[in-house]
C-alpha cells in the first residue's frame, strides 16, 4: 500500500507568491481570447466596403455550422450586412477557437502551459500581420478566423489550467480574477480599435493589433511551471471544511485512478482522458452546459440591435454594451471572493446553479423593460448575472474534476460546446425573424437558462449526497486498513499498553 502521505496532486499548491503573477498572465491571455474577436467589429464596415463583398458572395465560405444557419434562419432585413459579417467572422473564429480546445489540451498535458500560450500568441500575431496585407476576403477569413482563432484557443485553455495548478485554497478568487480579463480587455480594446482605425485605416490597425496581441507571449512568459517538490504540508492553514468537501468530491475519481497514481505520481495524463465520461460530476456539468450555451450568448449579441429596435440611437445602444462590460468587470472578482468564503466554497455548485438561474430570470423579465432607463437597468442586472456565471464557469469544473484532469476536461467540454455556442445566436435570430419581435427570443433564453439552473441545483444536490456517502465509505475503509497496519507494527508490549489505555 503506497504511503498515504502522497496527495492527489503530489505537491502543495503555493496559493500565492508567484501564483499572483500567473493570475496576471492568465488575466491577459483570457482577456485576449474572449475579447479580441468581439472587438474587431469596428473594422467590418470598412472591410466589407473595401472588398465589395455582398452577402451572397461570401455565403459559400462557410463551415457546416454556417450552412445549417443559412438553411434554418431567414436573415431578416433588420440584420444589416455588417451584423451578418460580424456573425460570420465571429463564427469562424469561435469555430477554430472551440474546436482547437482538445488540441491545446493534448499540448498542455504534454508540454505544460507556457510554451502553448507563447505559441498561441505568436500565431494570433502572425495571423493579424498577414491579414493586414490581405487581398481578398477569404485571405482575411483564413488569417483572422482560422489562424487567429487557433492561436486564441491556445491561450485560453492553458491559462485556466495553470491557475488550477497554483491555487487550491484561494482558487475561486484566482479564477474570478483571471476571468475578469475578458471584460477589461474588451473595454480597453473597443475604443482603442476605434482610435487605431481613425488613424491608420484597417490595414494599419491590423498590423498594430498583431503587435498588441503579442503581449500574450508576455503572459505566457509569466506562466512558470509550478514547482512540484513534495513538502511537509502546513497543518492548520487550510479551512477544514473546504479541503474536506473538496477531497470527498474527487474521492470517487481518485479511487479509480489509484493504479495510475502509483505509476505516474503527480503527472497528468498525456492524452485526452475519455474516462472522464464516467465521472458523474463531469457529466452533470457537460449536459447542463451544452443546453445552457444555447441561451447564454444570444442576449449579449442582440443587446444593441434590440436597443436600436426600441428606437434608441446607435451610440446609446453601443453604450449599453460598455455598461455591460463595466458591471461584468467588477462582478467577476467579487464573485471569486464570495466563492472563496467558507460558507460558499464547500457548496460552490449551488452558487453556480444560482448564477445560471439568475441569468434566466433576468432574461425573462427583460421584455418588461421600457425605454432607455429600463434597458440600462436590464443591462446592469444582466452584467451582474453574466459576470457571476463566467467567474464560476471553470471554477466549478475544477472543483468537480480536480486540477490534474482539468486540462483534458476543458478540451472535451469545449469541443462539445462548439455546437450550442455556434448555433445559439443564429437560432435566436431565426426566432426574432419568425415572430418579428425580440421578446420571444428573450423568453426562450430565459426559460433555457432557468431550466438549466434548476437542473444543476437538483443534480448537484444528488451529487453532493452521493459524494458524502462515498467519502464516509472510503474513510471507514481507510481507517480499517490503517488500524490493521498499526496493529501489525506494534510490539506485544505496546499492544497491551494500548489496550489498557483504550
Amino acid at each position: 500500500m503506497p504511503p498515504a502521505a502522497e496527495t492527489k496532486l503530489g505537491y502543495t499548491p503555493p496559493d500565492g507568491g508567484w501564483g499572483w503573477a500567473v493570475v496576471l498572465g492568465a488575466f491577459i491571455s483570457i482577456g485576449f481570447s474572449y475579447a479580441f474577436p468581439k472587438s474587431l467589429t469596428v473594422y467590418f464596415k470598412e472591410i466589407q466596403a473595401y472588398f465589395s463583398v455582398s452577402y451572397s458572395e461570401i455565403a459559400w465560405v462557410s463551415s457546416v455550422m454556417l450552412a445549417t444557419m443559412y438553411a434554418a434562419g431567414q436573415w431578416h432585413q433588420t440584420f444589416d450586412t455588417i451584423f451578418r459579417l460580424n456573425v460570420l467572422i465571429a463564427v469562424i473564429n469561435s469555430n477554430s477557437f472551440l474546436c482547437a480546445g482538445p488540441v491545446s489540451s493534448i499540448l498542455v498535458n504534454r508540454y505544460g502551459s507556457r510554451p502553448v500560450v507563447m505559441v498561441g500568441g505568436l500565431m494570433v500575431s502572425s495571423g493579424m500581420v498577414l491579414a493586414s496585407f490581405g487581398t481578398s476576403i477569404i485571405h482575411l477569413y483564413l488569417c483572422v478566423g482560422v489562424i487567429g482563432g487557433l492561436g486564441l484557443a491556445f491561450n485560453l485553455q492553458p491559462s485556466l489550467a495553470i491557475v488550477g495548478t497554483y491555487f487550491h485554497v484561494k482558487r475561486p478568487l484566482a479564477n474570478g480574477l483571471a476571468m475578469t480579463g475578458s471584460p477589461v480587455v474588451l473595454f480597453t480594446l473597443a475604443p482603442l480599435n476605434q482610435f487605431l482605425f481613425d488613424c491608420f485605416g484597417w490595414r494599419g490597425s491590423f498590423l498594430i493589433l498583431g503587435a498588441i496581441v503579442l503581449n500574450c507571449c508576455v503572459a505566457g512568459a509569466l506562466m512558470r511551471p509550478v514547482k512540484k517538490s513534495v513538502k511537509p504540508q502546513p497543518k492548520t492553514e487550510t479551512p477544514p471544511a473546504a479541503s474536506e468537501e473538496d477531497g470527498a468530491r474527487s474521492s470517487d475519481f481518485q479511487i479509480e485512478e489509484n493504479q495510475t497514481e502509483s505509476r505516474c505520481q503527480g503527472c497528468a495524463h498525456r492524452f485526452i482522458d475519455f474516462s472522464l465520461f464516467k465521472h458523474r460530476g463531469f457529466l452533470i456539468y457537460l449536459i447542463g452546459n451544452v443546453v445552457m450555451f444555447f441561451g447564454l450568448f444570444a442576449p449579449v449579441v442582440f443587446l444593441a440591435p434590440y436597443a436600436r429596435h426600441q428606437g434608441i440611437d446607435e451610440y446609446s445602444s453601443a453604450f449599453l454594451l460598455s455598461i455591460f462590460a463595466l458591471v461584468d468587470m467588477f462582478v467577476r472578482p467579487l464573485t471569486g471572493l464570495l466563492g472563496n468564503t467558507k460558507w460558499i466554497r464547500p457548496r460552490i455548485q449551488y452558487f453556480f446553479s444560482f448564477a445560471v438561474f439568475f441569468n434566466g430570470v433576468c432574461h425573462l423579465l427583460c421584455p418588461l423593460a421600457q425605454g432607455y432607463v429600463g434597458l440600462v437597468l436590464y443591462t446592469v442586472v444582466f452584467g451582474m448575472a453574466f459576470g457571476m456565471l463566467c467567474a464560476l464557469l471553470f471554477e466549478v469544473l475544477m472543483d468537480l474534476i480536480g486540477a490534474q484532469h482539468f486540462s483534458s476536461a476543458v478540451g472535451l467540454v469545449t469541443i462539445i460546446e462548439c455546437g450550442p455556442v455556434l448555433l445559439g445566436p443564429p437560432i435566436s435570430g431565426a426566432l426574432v425573424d419568425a415572430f418579428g419581435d425580440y421578446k420571444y427570443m428573450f423568453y426562450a433564453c430565459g426559460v433555457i437558462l432557468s431550466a438549466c439552473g434548476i437542473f444543476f441545483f437538483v443534480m448537484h444536490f444528488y451529487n453532493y449526497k452521493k459524494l458524502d456517502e462515498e467519502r464516509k465509505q472510503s474513510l471507514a475503509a481507510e481507517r480499517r486498513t490503517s488500524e490493521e497496519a498499526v496493529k501489525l507494527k506494534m510490539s506485544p508490549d505496546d499492544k497491551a499498553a494500548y489496550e489498557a489505555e483504550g
Partner: protein
Amino acid sequence: MSASWGKLFFQLVLLLASCGHINTKTPSPTSPSLDPISPLPSDIRRVVLKGESHTEKVELLNPVDLALECIWSGNENKSPNITGYWRKDGEEMQSIRVTVQLENDKYTLRQVFKIVSKENLGSYSCSFGDEAKADFLLAGPQIGEVRDKPIVSYVGDSVVVKCKMDEKKPKPASWNWYKANGTDKEQIFYAAEPQKYEIKNHEWVTKLVVHKLTEGDSGFYYCEGVYAVSTTMGHVELKVITFLEPLKPFIAIIVEVIVLVAAILIYEKSQSKKNSAGGNETNADQTNTPTPGDNNGPEESSSTRQRKV
C-alpha cells in the same frame, strides 16, 4: 380686402406688361394664365411668428408650387394695416409688397412661389413692416450618411469613398463626384481615367473607388446628388499614408514585448539559481522530518487525503 387684392393684381399686370419676358432671376408669383403647362404639385409651409424672427428649412427635390405663409399675432398697438413684403436672398421683391389687414387678431401674409429650377432655391423672407421676420431656406435635402472623420488608406492600395442618402427621402436622379483642387472643385469623369476612378451608384448610395493611390490623392472629395430642382452635397476627406506610419508603433510594441519576456525569463533564471544554491541546505533538513512523521501516519493520512485538489 378686395381693394388690396385688386391692387396686387394691378401691380402684377403692370409688371408683366413692362417686362418683355419673365426674368428667371426674380421669381414671379404664380399666374395661371401665363403657364398653361400641366399644373405642378403644390405644397405649403406655414410659420407662426413668435418673437422677433424664425428660420424654417424647406427641402425641395422636385418642381413645386410652394406657398409660403407667415402668421403674426402683432405687437402692443395692433394697427389695422401693416405692410408685408418678401425678400429673396436679401433682395426685396418689390412687386409683391402688400398691405396686410388685421384679421382675427392676426396678420397673415401668404405667397405662392414657383420652384422649377436651381435658381428658385435660396432664402425667402417674409416681413411685417420692420417688426417681425421669418426666413424660409429652400434647399436640397441633406446628405444622409457621410463619414465625418478622414478615411485613411495606403499608397498603392485602393479605397472606397461612400456617400449615402437618407433612405426616407427619394433617390437622387444621378450622382456627381468632385475632387477639391485648391479652392475649386474638379469633376471626376469616370470615362476619362477608368483605371484610376470607378463610380458605382446604387439607389441611395454612391461609391467612388480610387485605385493606385498616391499621396497626391489626399484631400477632400465631394459627392453631389442631383435632383430635379436641387442638388445635395456631401464631402469626405481622404488621407493617404505610407506603410511606414503604422510600422513605427508596431515595432515599438514588438520591442516592448521582447524586453518584457526577456526580463521575466532572466528574473526566473536568477531566482532558480538562488534556490538551487540554498536548496542543498534545505534538503538536509527535510531528511530528518519524515521519520517522526511516519508514526503519525494513520492520523495524518486523513488530513493528507483531504489535501486533494
